[in-house]
């Protein structure tokens, strides 16, 4: 091979290597669930409204057996994501449709509602400040944002209900709890992580693998921005 040909070959190889690296970074590693920005309230300043739902088994996407959150975007469409963007110094009114059955917590401490307005949440119209996950329908999931001092235990749906939702996004004709609460987004711009405490990663040791450790399912961020 001539010197020129060899030089050409090497340059093609370098270009290919760079291409593969860029593809790996942007085509795979940088992929993440969509971010949903909260909708500012039309009537009150410094408040935003967020509508979410939690499904027992999302039924779509690469992991149909995993549990996961959906957040309603500005156009009313639910997106399968756990990335929520809210403004700083704002009261976030959350309306959450909970479609999953419940169970006991690993640590019953997390049955306490902490950090919401009045340290209560409203479940189907009734105020609740503490959920005993060993009794009744148990706790289905948690919405726990340590950085904002928020822990919301979401009571489960009766496990014997007939019309369980299996494929997300679910609609309110199926068995659910409607849960409402308000939390304050704080004064600091930061990405606050949130997680769940119910061992809902079924099939994984201690129920904490799979969806519990994946963005877009049971792990996410509340992105507090200016």
């Amino acid at each position: 091979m001539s010197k020129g040909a060899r030089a050409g070959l090497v340059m093609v190889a370098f270009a290919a290597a760079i291409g593969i690296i860029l593809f790996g970074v942007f085509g795979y590693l940088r992929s993440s669930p969509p971010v949903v920005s909260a909708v500012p309230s039309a009537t009150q300043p410094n408040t935003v409204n967020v509508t979410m739902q939690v499904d027992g088994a999302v039924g779509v996407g690469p992991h149909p057996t995993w549990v996961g959150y959906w957040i309603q975007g500005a156009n009313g469409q639910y997106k399968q994501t756990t990335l929520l963007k809210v403004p700083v110094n704002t009261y976030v009114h959350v309306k959450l449709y909970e479609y999953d059955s419940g169970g006991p917590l690993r640590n019953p401490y997390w049955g306490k509602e902490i950090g919401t307005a009045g340290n209560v949440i409203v479940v189907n119209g009734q105020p609740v400040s503490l959920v005993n996950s060993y009794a009744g329908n148990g706790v289905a999931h948690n919405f726990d944002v340590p950085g904002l001092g928020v822990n919301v235990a979401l009571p489960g749906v009766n496990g014997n209900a007939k019309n369980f939702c299996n494929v997300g996004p679910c609609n309110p004709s199926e068995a659910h709890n409607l849960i409402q609460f308000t939390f304050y987004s704080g004064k600091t711009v930061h990405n606050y992580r949130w997680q769940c405490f119910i061992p809902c990663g079924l099939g994984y040791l201690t129920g904490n693998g799979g969806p519990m450790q994946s963005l877009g399912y049971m792990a996410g961020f509340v992105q507090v921005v200016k």
Partner: protein
Amino acid sequence: MALKTSEESGSPAAIARKHGSRIVAIWFILSLIIDLVVWFVWGPHMPPGDMTTTAAGQQFDFKVLTVMSVPVLLMVWVYGAYVIINFRDRGDHADGYYVKGNRKSQGLWYAATAVLVLFLAGFGTYELVVPAGAGVGEGPSPIWKPASTAHMLQVQVIAQQWRFTYRWPQFGGMETTSLVLPVNTEIQFNVTSLDVIHDFWAYQLGVKADANPEDNNVAYTKTQQTGRFVVRCDELCGIWHGAMYNYGNVVSQNAFYQWATNMEAQNASLTKLLPKYSTVYVPNDNVAGGQYFNG
């Protein structure tokens, strides 16, 4: 090829003495200056500070090791720089001075390193045993305990994916997310985990202990100053390992007592739901719908 020897005159011993005395002089002066600076200027400001006895102990040990390391570091550097400057190829592509060993310098080296190492091991052992384990987790049945265990505050650290909570057996077995400690108090941390291995690292307290599932890991310390400290998870535990931290405070004994009794009353209804206080919690997976812990 040319096989000229070094053109320096004199016996090898004399040459060695000439170069050696220069190297030793530079090394000694530099070591002395830097060690004094390390000990007196830098030392008192070394992390992790002296909020507790164990933190102060770690600070002291770090200082001692640094003072001992400086001469070693400088020995290699001064020697290396001297050699690079003086014993370089002078363009004649000659070979160096033919020597394959030196009984005296080798013997000195062996002796010096052995003494240094044995001293360090002895010092480390002393500093581990005397301050009751130096703030390190000692497993379920610690062998190095503080002299007096009366009035010791018991704090249980429960790690789980991915938060720490704290239980207070002396306050009705209540559980909190915040860690508040009284000043001038012996504290016993009982560290355990509900799932995977975590590590309880209270940085300014100088306490570090792995949180093992179904096992208790005890660490002691004694607070001696008030202030804020950070608790971080120090063993990889999954997606939120990096975010598994919280802050705590060492406060006056009165303030602590007030806080604790307040909390106890506030959390009374919640405490009733908790399992009985125990040093380890064994998950019970015979319960349908998930796993939870019972004492």
